[in-house]
């Protein structure tokens, strides 16, 4: 169990490093074909499809999100934001928590739910934003590491007026 936990922790730290190093294509490759990347507006929800979301990406739209950053015409990311993701308070959650986190996801036998808190600092031009969130991942074994089936980011103040979230949270 400790080994699983430490492998999961290493994985999400590595994920944060890819984002903060601007290695977006490698980050995208972490996601499985059936992946969901979800920032709910209403963080009490367990299901993204019948609600308005800040982000509800399938793998295609997540790919579009990354390619928009690279295309050179996404003015809100020209120049690109730099970010720093600080991830902590990580713990593995029991499998039945999927019902409240992402009810549309059917867990595979070896899938793992890990959840924690993040502080995301974003810097662009002469401004700096700080976001706080609870982050949950559904990870599925892939070789000797994992793939991301669900990444759910519950922003603090998700329903308050927000700055642009054009970078990857």
């Amino acid at each position: 169990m400790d080994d699983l936990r430490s492998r999961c922790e290493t994985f999400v730290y590595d994920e944060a490093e890819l984002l903060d190093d601007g290695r977006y294509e490698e980050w995208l490759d972490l996601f499985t074909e059936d992946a969901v990347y979800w920032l709910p507006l209403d963080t009490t929800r367990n299901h993204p499809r019948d609600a308005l979301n800040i982000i509800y990406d399938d793998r295609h739209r997540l790919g579009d999100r990354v390619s928009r950053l690279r295309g050179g015409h996404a003015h809100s990311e020209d120049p690109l934001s730099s970010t720093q993701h600080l991830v902590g308070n990580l713990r593995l959650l029991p499998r039945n928590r999927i019902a409240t986190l992402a009810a549309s996801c059917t867990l595979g036998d070896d899938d793992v739910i890990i959840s924690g808190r993040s502080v995301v600092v974003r810097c662009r031009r002469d401004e700096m934003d700080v976001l706080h969130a609870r982050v949950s991942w559904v990870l599925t074994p892939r070789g000797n590491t994992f793939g991301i089936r669900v990444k759910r980011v519950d922003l603090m103040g998700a329903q308050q007026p927000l700055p642009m979230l054009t970078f990857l949270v």
Partner: protein
Amino acid sequence: MTVPDADGLAAMVRPDAVHRDAYKNPAVFALEMERIFKGTWVFVGHESEVANPGDYRTLRIGNEPVIFVRDDGGVLRVLVNRCRHRAATVCQWEAGNARSFRCEYHGWTYRADGRLVGVTHPDRYDDDLRDTRGLVSVAKVDSYRGLVFASFNPQVPELVDHLGPAAVEYLDRWLDHAGGRPLVAMAQAHRLIIPSNWKLQVENGLDGYHGGFVHRSFFNLMQARTGKSVRYASGLPTAQAKAFRHGHAAVDPETTSRQPLVNRIAVLPHATELLESMRKRVGDDIYEGLLAALPGPGINIGIFPNLQLIGIHLRRIEPVSVDRAVVSVRPLLLADGPPEFNELRMRYHELFYGPAGFGQPDDIEMFDRVDDGLADDTDNWLLFSRGITQETEDGEVRTGNVSDETPQRAQYREWVRLMTAGASAADG
């Protein structure tokens, strides 16, 4: 900066240009809150946001904190969110349902229609305050087909006259875009910080010139995903920009085709499965009509000063300070629509709008850049001359090419009218 008089305010708007002071002078902003936001009709919300007695939403009209509420008798009210004792707000939530509003400072209680029904320990007052100290009701509240407006100015014309027949015709076209099926506002809305003067959003929502440039990355993505070429409205000779009375306006690329909008549906998450299921549910004929309605009417409408109908959403603009505003974009769904339709509508909206959409953030980036550029005072004028000699006039309606600044010129004519009408009354 000095407080401008009526002549100074009028001089900020030329027929073809607007002075930077209109965007940068805090004294002008203070006058706008008084003379525009307390001088004319201001959009507060859709009646379906407060569908049941006691439902409320808090917002601001200019600087005024207000509660938009449906009272026990079903009447829509807009009440000032301020206790008549010592000014504390009586409602702390963005939205909810309440039988009454209680000021927790000294326990005064008001009903949803604003009546003061409870004063704690009243024996220390000589009079019964309940008759005279109800929450202040905003002078006028009226609605047009579910769009609710309020005005602090009891002298405003009737709402329908304020809107005028030409804007009403466009509103009808927009609101009937799903074949007349009733629309309902979502409880949820995207709310975004605008790091600039509020009028940049007013201008931009009716700007048919910028799309191909600001949203180039979006159009490139859609082209790559759908395999269909996307010609944006500003390159279309028959698409129109319209200006109506009182600064209301529309951009109308629908005179060409909505097909490019419908094409986007295919890229939405679960589109194939949802479209199939919807076709089975409603049958081929109704399906085709729903598909065409899904992306909305393809017309942008602006009701000056703070409402825009764009895509499938109602956009409400709230000024905060001279260089900050908040905009909310609230999608409309079909009240009794097939669930597949409404799910795809939400996905369609999320694609472009909201803080993480693929379109709206690029607009807001431009507002930020304008705000930075406005630091300059060597030029001082923002140019709005596009199409000025080529637009046509028919009664109170002006029509230009979709990329003309016909709407913006109308917005600033209304801005001058409101800003100087208040000034002359005050001076006289």
